[in-house]
């Protein structure tokens, strides 16, 4: 099975994609999330990521296992970077493989949605106004759908 990792170095997304490939897979999807310079009128210089690693690793492994069974994936790997991530660099990479493309695309999107809702990782945005931790008002309490 492909890796689930929290890393402090740059992510090699192409290598992650290679690890999910197999003779049974006809579709391979790689998603990378990168630090964006602009959100509306705000400018971001870099992001700092922090995690509660004990729980984050457990939750990411659970998401991978659930994605594999829910979408019938051949394989799935997830890497999230921690620490400082400059504009244009990758903070998260998700690679999935499946027999056909529909399951692969759907699984990648589902994984990102879940990751953003329930894995204990936080970003701090650095911009002209200083540094601000992001704790979305709209976020559901991650404990509430832990079952």
């Amino acid at each position: 099975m492909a890796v689930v990792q929290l890393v402090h170095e740059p992510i090699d997304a192409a290598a992650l994609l290679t690890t999910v490939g197999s003779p049974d897979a006809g579709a391979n999807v790689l998603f990378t999330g990168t630090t964006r310079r602009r959100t509306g009128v705000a400018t971001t210089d870099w992001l700092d990521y922090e995690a509660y690693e004990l729980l984050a690793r457990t939750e990411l492994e659970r998401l991978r296992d659930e994605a594999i069974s829910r979408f019938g994936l051949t394989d799935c790997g997830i890497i999230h970077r921690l620490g400082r991530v400059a504009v244009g660099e990758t903070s998260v990479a998700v690679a999935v493989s499946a027999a056909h493309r529909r399951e692969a695309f759907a699984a990648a999107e589902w994984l990102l949605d879940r990751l953003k809702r329930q894995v204990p990782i936080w970003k701090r945005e650095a911009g002209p106004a200083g540094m601000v931790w992001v704790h979305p008002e709209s976020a559901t309490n991650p404990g509430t759908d832990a079952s």
Partner: protein
Amino acid sequence: MNTSGSQQAGVKTRPMRVQVKLFAGMAAEAAQRQLVLELTVATVAGVRAALAAAVPAIAPLLARSAVAVGGRYAADETLVGPDDEIAIIPPVSGG
């Protein structure tokens, strides 16, 4: 990992010390990443009450946060013990 949540039904009323981990904006607001709390009620709800009393500045964010005990998300009625790893999980923003 000790997850005291399972066995005994009763809730302790004698004071008990626990260590609590804070992260991200909550750690910044509290100016500490870890603190010791005296609980009068040995549950997750007791942790929330003691933490809000100890660091009032984080109460609003705490109300929107989850709590993990022994590396798992835990409900308010979950029992906690002195050896449990307790962490406050404010709304997440990974990805």
